[in-house]
């Protein structure tokens, strides 16, 4: 314990410095979003706004070609089906990989795992051509379908969790003649709430934060997601950083809410996904 006094002080210094670096930009975003344009470009810059200009937010809500609220609804039209269907289909596959014996199981599992190494840029163009052929450009389908039927990362994470559930719980159900589907629905899924929460956060984050996907597939601005609409601010407002920062704050709010509510699940999930090592 003696040696550690120095290291503990050093640790606090490192962490305090890192916290400062992490928080300052967020703080700057917050105060910038409330400043008047004149104050924004004052030199030297003021720390807090002399007048808190709430109108920035009012203005930004309806500033783009569609309202911020509509962009949020559009994002949810993609995010909610992705989260719900991905969890249903991934968990079915994960359960099969964890508990059912069938030929070529290991090979198929490896196929899923190795697909995680494929850079998304490699599949980007052929996928686009596929969706063009299906006449699904400028719809939400290209953003939903590829993740709706289960994805490798989800399957991997769920399988890891399912393998920790004691098998005795299922054996009684097997003797009663329960089908595998009923075991999955009535025993496995109810026991897996923590991992489902974790995965929901990851999937929400991935889908809501996605920029490249909507950029490729959505053309009409009435269909823009939050990220796509926000990025457009850079062109339409160029130097109106007050509005850009207010918009950024608004885009951050849903993420912050989820983050505060689900924090413990996030840490658990990252630890589990890192265990692969």
């Amino acid at each position: 314990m003696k040696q550690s006094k120095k290291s503990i002080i050093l640790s606090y210094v490192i962490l305090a410095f890192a916290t400062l670096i992490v928080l300052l930009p967020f703080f700057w975003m917050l105060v910038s979003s409330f400043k008047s344009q004149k104050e924004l470009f004052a030199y030297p810059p003021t720390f807090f706004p002399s007048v808190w200009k709430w109108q920035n937010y009012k203005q930004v809500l309806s500033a783009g070609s569609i309202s911020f609220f509509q962009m949020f609804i559009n994002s949810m039209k993609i995010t909610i089906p992705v989260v719900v269907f991905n969890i249903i289909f991934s968990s079915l596959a994960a359960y099969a990989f964890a508990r059912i014996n069938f030929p070529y199981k290991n090979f198929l599992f490896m196929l899923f795992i190795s697909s995680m190494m494929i850079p998304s840029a490699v599949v980007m163009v052929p996928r686009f051509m596929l969706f063009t052929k299906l006449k699904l450009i400028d719809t939400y389908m290209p953003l939903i379908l590829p993740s709706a039927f289960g994805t490798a990362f989800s399957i991997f994470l769920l399988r890891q969790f399912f393998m920790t559930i004691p098998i005795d719980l299922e054996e009684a159900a097997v003797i009663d003649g329960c089908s595998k589907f009923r075991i999955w629905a009535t025993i496995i899924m109810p026991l897996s709430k923590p991992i489902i929460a974790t995965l929901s956060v990851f999937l929400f984050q991935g889908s809501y934060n996605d920029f490249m996907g909507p950029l490729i597939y959505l053309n009409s601005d009435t269909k823009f997601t939050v990220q796509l609409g926000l990025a457009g601010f850079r062109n339409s407002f160029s130097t109106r950083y007050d509005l850009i920062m207010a918009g950024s704050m608004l885009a951050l709010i849903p993420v912050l809410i989820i983050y505060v509510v689900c924090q413990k699940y996030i840490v658990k999930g990252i630890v589990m996904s890192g265990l692969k090592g």
Partner: protein
Amino acid sequence: MKSVANDTSKKKGMKTMTLQRKDALSGYLFIAPALISLLVFMVYPVIASFVISGFDWGILTTPKFIGLENYKTLFRDPVFLESLKNTFVWVIMYVPVSILVSLIVALAMDMPLRGIGFFRTMFYLPVMTPMVVCALLFVWIYNTDFGALNYILSFFKIAPIKWLTDKNIALISIALMSVWKNFGYNMLILLSALQGIPESLYEAAALDGITPWRKLINIKLPLIMPSMYFVILTSVIDAFQVFTEVYIMTKGGPGYSTYTVSYYLFNNAFEFGKMGYACAMSVIMFVIILTVTLIQDKIMNKNVQYDM
């Protein structure tokens, strides 16, 4: 007696056979949606990418087979070569710095401190934040004349730096932003590995009167190597694909100084409609990432001891 026993075991055998078959069937049914999706949205596009890269494939023109012509053009295309160079510079710059930062913070967190929960929450905040938000925020912070960063530096008598408009600095600026945004993720993985090191090892080391520095070099670092390799691998794969921050912050500029392969690929496919050319680029990227992964895998299997 004997025959009866035989009989029942036979029956039982048959029963388990059908049960096994039923199980196998439900297994296939369970993975069917995910497997079909994998084949349609991953396996098929990868194969198609290779095929399309052999064609002169525009949006409006009929595709024409040209063999390796796209690849030959690519390696004579100065913009592609610049993008390739920038991407390698990015990976070599971003990956070590971000992992070093993650490691230092993780080591600092792996101490009997108060408020660990608070720090963990703070450091993960940028990871949750959308990249578009981070990129826009740093465009403002990096602003040459009115940005907060140059203002802070002015206290140290440092003249204003053109963070995003100087050819030699822009890529570094974007990389610094990415480190800021992403270090929290790898930090959590490394931290959980550090906390998985059994206490008994430290106790034995304490008896030997080991210095903190030797404790770090001889116990902590070797034991977190499996997680370290996982972190390096995923960071390298992600770093090769850097796109959103470039698209928002500099659009590849000034000049071509922040063009990356992903950015140029996107431009070719979705702005110029040169699908074949873009696919050739994606194939090159695929081969590079695969090679790096395999090399790393080889080093990893040589050096890592899995049993703790």
